[in-house]
């Protein structure tokens, strides 16, 4: 169901399409996780998403062994999504949500949004808009404590 994006290459045309997912399937996916999760809602047309992508990449490198990182691409095209992933090399799991059902289900607004989940899918916090380094670091530290 999920894909791990490999080495970024060109316009991303060599990447597989992002898998589509419903809100129910996504909730079940989170419920099955034994560790906390950070879910970032993004889109290739979203300018602020570009700004936070490098930070998310570094956070994944730092916390990826303790926290599940998931991207949700909303209201986008597959081609745009793959180009974005190729440009920023976001090497974690991404899903495609053309109709924006997942952020609507969890209650965020706008794009980007970052959700923080405890293990087994309990929503702890929602950050609407671009997330800065300190806010992301404090929230990651917080969810990892719940996961212990």
């Amino acid at each position, binding site marked *: 169901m999920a894909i791990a994006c490999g080495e970024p290459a060109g316009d991303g045309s060599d990447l597989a399409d992002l898998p589509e997912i419903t809100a129910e399937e996504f909730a079940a996916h989170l419920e099955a996780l034994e560790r906390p999760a950070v879910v970032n809602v993004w889109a290739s047309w979203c300018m602020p998403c*570009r700004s936070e992508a490098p930070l998310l990449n570094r956070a994944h490198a730092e916390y990826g062994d303790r926290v599940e990182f998931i991207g949700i691409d909303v209201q986008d095209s597959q081609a745009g999504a793959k180009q974005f992933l190729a440009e920023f090399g976001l090497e974690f799991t991404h899903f495609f949500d053309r109709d924006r059902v997942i952020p609507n289900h969890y209650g965020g607004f706008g794009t980007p949004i970052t959700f923080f989940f405890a293990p087994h899918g309990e929503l702890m916090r929602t950050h609407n808009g671009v997330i800065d380094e300190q806010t992301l670091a404090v929230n990651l530290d*917080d969810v990892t404590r719940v996961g212990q």
Partner: protein
Amino acid sequence: MEFTLLWAVLTAAALAWFGLRIWPERVPAHALDRLLGAGITALVAGRLVAMIAQGVNPLTAPGDIIVIRGGVSTAAAALVFIATLAWTTRSARDALDAVAPATVLALAGWHAGCVWRGACLGSVSDLPWAWALPGSQATRHPVEIYTATALALGAWVVSRLGWRLWARAGAALAVISAVRLLTETLRPSITGGPIAWYIAGVVIGLIAPLVARAPWGPGARAPT
């Protein structure tokens, strides 16, 4: 939610204005305009450097420049702030010293603006004044409030110093850098803070008055 940063900026600007009113001695004309201009220039420069460091090309993604929350290089912003302020006030010899306390107070306001942003907390603490993120059991140091308080005190200390050339400006740089350095351990970080730059800021701030009076320094021929 994005506009909570604007409230932090307005808090900083309000405290800059207040600082210039309570410490008006030798303040050059249009000091608030010059401070704000230097601050905005510094933000843009710091943002550009941060984008390049993150691998984002400002020429192909110019719109990203305004997304300040995406990251600002502290060192680049500080250097550009000082350079811009020095350039715009070059006709007034004591200008940097005169606006130094207000600058430190403005920075205190920027950190106190964490209240608007809901981003005051740092590392975990059991101290009685620590508080927790919504829905969390882990209480945390309100590190941005510590920083704002220390900077406000630092602004007052700087305002009490004498008028030896660059003494106040240097002390301001040293105070700001030292406060950030000391509070950095209370800030969870992903990339690690610019510790080396804070140490450099303390050192440069402390030696600035000596440099000003060196034979080749700006204060050598016309001592205050």
